[in-house]
């Protein structure tokens, strides 16, 4: 009798100690499901950005100091050489732009003749990358400007190589971008040579994209360059996305799967360009100065400070 009582006592004891554990574990699992199924994680981070940003700021401080220091103590000759190289690059780039301007004008005219509606105007803004390491198993990036500088949800991100990703969370002074190589990411692309349209998915590896479900008869081969097709409106058309490095039949042998290497420099670089499509109706008539304002009204001085340019593809 006494033994039985003792035993039940011990049982209830252990039940009491594991109860909080079970409670917290169930809570954590619930959160994970909510994040996976309904993407509550992004919303939570956006709400908590005030709490997060100080941590990011502190973590990126050593690297920032190091960069600042190396710039401060750079050799004069080195800076001059750097400067010369930049000027040369700029000259070449300007020459190329002049050539392209004529083509763009012609293109615009032809589109108008056809009654096309793809006259999107592009807004370009340069932002820095914050030097911190996020979860190494998710391909994400933190940018050091946020809604105060006019960054918006869904803006596309490019660097000198090509498409890098898109903005998924915007804080006050920081924002987070999803890279093209994240398994959750997909870009509508087009093979530049044949015009074949497909969708490029991320794989979680920083050097690989995959294009599943291509018809067997499709014209795609190794070495083909992929560009954004502009379908969906999120990514402007014509930016390089990657290069096909292999084509093989899929498991069912009904379709073909292509592997591609991303064109953007995902591993290096500390500055990227943010671009956003704006509806074509803005393009009508002479550009009104008021339209250059970013939609967030209090951000006007900050937006003036950042290099903002307009281009008409």
């Amino acid at each position, binding site marked *: 009798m006494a033994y039985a009582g003792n035993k039940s006592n011990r049982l209830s004891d252990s039940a009491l100690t594991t109860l*909080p554990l079970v409670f917290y574990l169930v*809570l954590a699992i619930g959160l994970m499901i909510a994040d996976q199924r309904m993407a*509550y994680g992004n919303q*939570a981070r956006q709400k908590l950005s005030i709490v997060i940003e100080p941590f990011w700021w502190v973590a990126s401080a050593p690297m920032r100091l190091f960069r600042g220091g190396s710039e401060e103590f750079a050799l004069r000759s080195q800076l001059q050489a750097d400067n010369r190289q930049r000027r040369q690059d700029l000259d070449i780039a300007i020459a190329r732009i002049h050539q392209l301007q004529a083509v763009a004008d012609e293109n615009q005219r032809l589109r108008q003749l056809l009654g096309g509606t793809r006259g999107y105007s592009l807004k370009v803004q340069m932002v820095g990358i914050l030097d*911190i*390491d996020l979860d190494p198993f998710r391909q994400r990036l933190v940018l050091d400007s946020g809604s105060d500088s006019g960054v918006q949800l869904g803006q596309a991100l490019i660097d000198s190589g090509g498409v890098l990703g898109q903005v998924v969370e915007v804080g006050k002074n920081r924002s987070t971008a999803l890279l093209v190589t994240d398994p959750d990411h997909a870009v509508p692309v087009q093979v530049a040579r044949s015009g074949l349209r497909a969708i490029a998915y991320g794989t979680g590896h920083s050097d690989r994209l995959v294009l599943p479900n291509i018809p067997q008869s499709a014209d795609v081969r190794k070495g083909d360059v992929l560009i954004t097709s502009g379908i969906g409106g999120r990514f402007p058309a014509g930016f390089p996305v990657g290069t096909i490095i292999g084509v093989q039949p899929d498991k069912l042998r009904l379709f073909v799967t292509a592997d591609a290497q991303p064109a953007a420099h995902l591993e290096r670089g500390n500055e990227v360009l943010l671009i956003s499509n704006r509806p074509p109706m803005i393009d009508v008539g002479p550009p009104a100065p008021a339209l250059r304002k970013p939609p967030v009204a209090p951000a006007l001085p900050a937006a003036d400070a950042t290099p903002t340019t307009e281009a008409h593809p």
Partner: protein
Amino acid sequence: MIRPPTGWLVHGSFLLGLVFAVLPLPDMLQPVRPYLLAMLLAYWLMEAPNRVGLGTAFLVGLLADVITASVLGEQAFRLVVLAFLVQHFRARLRFFPLWQQAVAIGLLLLNDRVITWLIHAVVGSPPHGVAYWLAPVLGVLLWPWLYVLIDLARLRARERS
């Protein structure tokens, strides 16, 4: 007996651990980044069980999830499991010699890696490399230093007050 440590030391160490979680490391070291938060949590669970518990583990883990942009709840889950194990074996862990304690912490960290691996398999992350399983080894090597360092900090704090 040793007096319970001051609150700011516990909180400050967790804040440092959170910063360390996103501190930029060279590419080579990235997959073997030691899980400092878990080690700090284990230390405080052993030394100040009246201040730190499962609730702390959950909150710290949630904060880490938000800061490192991992799946919301992932690190909370991992740290709660770890905290429960440390609480359960606290009496034994506390009186181990330091090297034995380090090995025990290494086993806890390895268990944590297995849990992470399972979570990632369910969530659908890409497969991990071999280096992924080496992080607990680094944790073992780091544990004695961490232990002595926090002990020293506590000693200094007590002398000052």
